[in-house]
């Protein structure tokens, strides 16, 4: 049984006990009051019987009417009192009935006494007295008995009430004791088990289980405790595992943290290296873009200022033969005058050390003797400077000086490495630039030779333009040629040699001169001339060298044009009624041995224009879209000014406008207008850049 049920049962039993006791006390009290009243009546009847005895004796001795009446009155009173009895028990009823009979007989006997009193002799007096006395005694005895019976019953009732109360209290007490013995001791024992078990579990034995003895609250508690212990065990195990895992993770995290720090350090170092490398690459890229020595030096100085925290960078060149140091570039605060020449004897010890020893060094001018500080310290306030020599093939070609005019700032390792790296590239770049400049000078002269046209030809008006995509590419492969042949014939050519630079220029020269040479051979057609040129080029150059060429022979007298187009872009014949395309009719020149070229013939009318151009025109781009032949021919069809110069100028303007002045390739253009013999105009160079 559950403790709560027992508690409720105890309360109910206690309540019932109280109710029963209360009812019993109430009923008993009422009964006692009633019995007291009954007893009082019985006593009154007994007293009345005594008085009746006295009155009867009085009457027997003195049989007078008033005495009889007194007796009768008294008897009536006593009888009325007796009639109030409400006997309950059988004994009371029996006595009350007896008492009633006694009173009746008493009255009958008195009546008999009255009857006999008048006529009786004196001898009947004792008889009458005795008869009355017997009845009176009987009445008195029964009234006493009744009184005693009532008193006894009252005592019995009170005793029963007390007994009932005692019994109930005893029973309840016994219940409590039994409850204690059976229930509470059981509960206490179970609780004792719980307490003992909690101590065991508290010492860490999570395998211990509380014995579940009964299906009560303690049993529930024990089950819940066992479940909690089981869960706790699981949780503890998990906790231990978790703690171990946490420890491992903490260790791993610490290791990771250390690794992160290391990685961060490494990363920082890498970043620095990367940054340095990147800056070096940037510098290299920057350097590589410039082939002009002066410009390159200037860029180098700006790069150094940008990549370091110092305020002045100077790039000097060293002319060993003259024994002079020349300032090529100086950027930042208080720059040196570019072009300044300083004999080695007049510079500071630091500069001499860099030039002569090729050693990277930091110089503290404040510590140098005054006579060794040179003009740099006095005029340019140099105090603390990094000197890095520029070396090319073990020869000192110059030096970089990094400092802060009038200030002293330290140089970090990274800065030193960075400047050293830049210096290493700069040395090469300066040398390359110097060589490039020399090569460009040669190429320019060569190109100028290749692009030279006669000033004027009879019967023709012509204009030509050459536009280089970059400075470096000025020695490009595009060429054109216009030359007079015998018999009023004129050779006209335009070509595009693969490659750039001197090699391309040499090839261009070869092609141009070979064509011109074979064209002077009498009877040779343009196809034959290109085949002969193909053989020469193929045999004289590497396989990858090839040329696209349009070559035609124009008869100035009648305008007949025989041409062969070896893989070149279409030429355009601009007439009054439209523009005719003269497309390629043969393979590339120099690409294949024994190549066969096509040949075509057309006629250039008076005032008609023959426009030759290279692919730098049609491949000009705007947002990835080519200028193209269609646009070109539309333009040619729409132009109204058919002058050779006007056409070239308009076309150059259009394509430059189209490409945003950014041509991707070299552009060569030659326009020839037949104006008839007897008329000639000077050739016009529209653009050459």
């Amino acid at each position, binding site marked *: 049984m559950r403790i709560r049920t027992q508690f409720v049962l105890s309360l109910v039993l206690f309540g019932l006990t109280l109710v029963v006791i209360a009812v019993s006390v109430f009923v008993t009290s009422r009964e006692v009051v009633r019995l007291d009243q009954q007893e009082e009546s019985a006593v009154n009847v007994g007293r009345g019987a005594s008085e009746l005895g006295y009155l009867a004796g009085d009457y027997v001795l003195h049989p007078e009417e008033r005495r009889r009446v007194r007796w009768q009155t008294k008897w009536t009173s006593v009888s009325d009192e007796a009639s109030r009895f409400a006997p309950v*028990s*059988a*004994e009371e*009823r*029996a*006595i009350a*009935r*007896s008492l009633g*009979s006694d009173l*009746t*007989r008493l009255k*009958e*006997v008195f009546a*008999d006494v009255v009857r*006999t009193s008048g*006529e009786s002799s004196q*001898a*009947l007096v*004792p*008889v009458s007295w*005795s*008869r009355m*006395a*017997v*009845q*009176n*005694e*009987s009445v*008195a*005895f029964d009234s*006493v*008995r009744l009184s*005693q*019976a009532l008193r*006894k019953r009252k005592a019995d009732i009170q005793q029963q009430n007390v007994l009932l109360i005692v019994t109930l209290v005893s029973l309840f007490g016994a219940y409590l004791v039994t409850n204690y*013995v*059976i229930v509470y*001791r*059981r509960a206490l024992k179970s609780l004792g088990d719980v307490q003992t078990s909690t101590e065991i579990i508290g010492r860490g034995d999570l395998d211990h289980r509380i014995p579940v003895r009964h299906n009560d609250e303690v049993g529930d508690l024990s089950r819940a405790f066992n479940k909690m212990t089981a869960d706790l065990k699981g949780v503890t195990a998990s906790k231990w595992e978790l703690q171990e895992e946490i420890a491992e993770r903490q260790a791993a995290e610490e290791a990771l943290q250390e690794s992160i720090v290391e990685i961060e350090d490494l990363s920082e170092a890498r970043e620095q290296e990367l940054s340095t490398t990147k800056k070096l690459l940037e510098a290299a890229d920057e350097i590589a873009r410039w082939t002009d020595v002066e410009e390159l030096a200037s860029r180098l100085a700006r790069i150094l200022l940008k990549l370091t925290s110092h305020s002045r960078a100077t790039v000097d060149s060293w002319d060993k033969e003259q024994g002079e140091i020349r300032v090529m570039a100086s950027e930042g605060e208080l720059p040196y005058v570019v072009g300044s020449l300083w004999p080695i004897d007049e510079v500071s010890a630091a500069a001499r050390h860099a030039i002569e020893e090729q050693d990277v060094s930091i110089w503290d001018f404040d510590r140098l003797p005054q006579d060794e500080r040179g003009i740099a310290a006095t005029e340019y306030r140099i105090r603390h400077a990094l000197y890095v020599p520029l070396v090319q093939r073990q020869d000192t070609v110059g030096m970089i000086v990094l400092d802060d005019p009038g200030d002293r700032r330290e140089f970090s390792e990274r800065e030193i490495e960075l400047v050293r790296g830049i210096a290493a590239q700069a040395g090469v770049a300066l040398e390359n630039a110097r060589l490039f400049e020399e090569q460009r000078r040669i190429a320019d002269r060569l190109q100028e030779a290749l692009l030279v046209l006669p000033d004027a030809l009879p019967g023709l008006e012509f204009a030509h333009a050459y536009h280089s995509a970059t400075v470096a590419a000025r020695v490009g492969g595009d060429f054109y040629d216009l030359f007079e042949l015998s018999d009023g014939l004129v050779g006209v050519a335009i070509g595009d040699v693969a490659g750039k630079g001197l090699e391309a220029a040499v090839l261009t020269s070869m092609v141009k001169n070979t064509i011109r040479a074979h064209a002077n051979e009498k009877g040779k057609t343009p196809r034959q001339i290109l085949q002969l040129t193909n053989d020469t080029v193929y045999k004289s150059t590497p396989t990858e060298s090839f040329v696209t060429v349009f070559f035609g022979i124009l008869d100035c007298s009648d305008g007949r044009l025989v041409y062969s187009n070896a893989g070149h872009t279409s030429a355009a014949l601009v007439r009054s009624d439209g523009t005719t395309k003269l497309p390629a009719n043969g393979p590339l020149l120099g690409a294949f041995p024994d190549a066969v070229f096509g040949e075509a013939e057309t006629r250039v009318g008076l005032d008609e224009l023959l426009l030759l151009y290279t692919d730098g025109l049609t491949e000009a781009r705007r947002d990835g879209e080519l200028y193209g032949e269609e646009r070109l021919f539309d333009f040619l069809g729409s132009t109204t000014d058919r002058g050779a110069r006007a056409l070239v100028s308009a076309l150059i303007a259009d394509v430059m406008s189209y490409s945003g002045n950014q041509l991707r390739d070299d552009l060569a253009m030659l326009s020839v207008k037949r104006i008839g013999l007897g008329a000639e105009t000077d050739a016009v160079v529209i653009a050459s850049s």
Partner: protein
Amino acid sequence: MKRILHMVAVLAALAVVSGCTPSPKKMDSITVAYAPFESVSLVYVAQAQNMFADNGLRVTYRKYDTGVGALEGVQKGEADIAVGTAEYPLVGRAFQEVPVSAIASIDRPDFIYLIGRKDRGVEKPSDLKGKRIGTVAGSIAQFYLGRFLELNDMTAEDITFVDVKTPDEWRAAIANGDVDAVVLAQPEASLVKARLGSNATFFSVQGSQPAYSLAIATNEWISGNPAAVRKFLSALADAEEFVAGNPAETRAIIQKRLGLDSDYMDLVETQNTFALSLDQSLIIAMEDEARWMINNRITPKKEVPDFSDYVHTAGLKKVKPDAVNIIR
């Protein structure tokens, strides 16, 4: 816990066994002399309800025709206790100084009647003068007859007293006219009256004064057997309680025992008061009867005995103290 429960169970079992098994009582054997009147109904009830045995008495019953006969049986040693004997025979024994005592009154009957024959001129009390009237000599009936005569302005000398000792005698005497009237106790009175039919006259001669149906034993026996006295009275007290609480059963027991008809049984409830008592009225009544006997020269003694010497109250006091009220 189980051990405690076992102990409780064993103790409970012992308590039940001890409560259910009565302790062996010492059985006393007594012989009770009685006359077959309703005034011994308590004895009948006690016998019928096995109350004597329950109180440790093994009772042997000896039947006598009258209460006087039963008392004589005790005196002769034929029985230990006589029941149903009225106080008047005890008064006679007192004059004779016979060592007997009443140990209790068990009934207050008003049951003595005179049955007269009309054909003999007995129709009202005054007609009794000169008539032959039969009754049991020495019995309460004789006293009530004498008192009846006194109260009706006659004396014993005005009639002819005929002693009839047994039922056969008085039934025959009234039937064949040997007597003009008989004074008998119930239920004989009603029986005789019935036999006379309409020829019978029927008067109560007790004058509203009940008699006392006593239990009488010799003083020697009483003093020698106080336990038996107490057991006997206890059984009768039980019977009194039964009678008071069970009127129908009591009526059935009496009717069966005496072979009475239902009409008569109605009278039994009004003319008897079945209760144990020893009160002062008994002494007064006995003294009155004693004086009557002296006045009528029935006894040669001239002095009324001290009847308290013939009433043994100790036994009843132990059993039912409230029922004892004797002035000494």
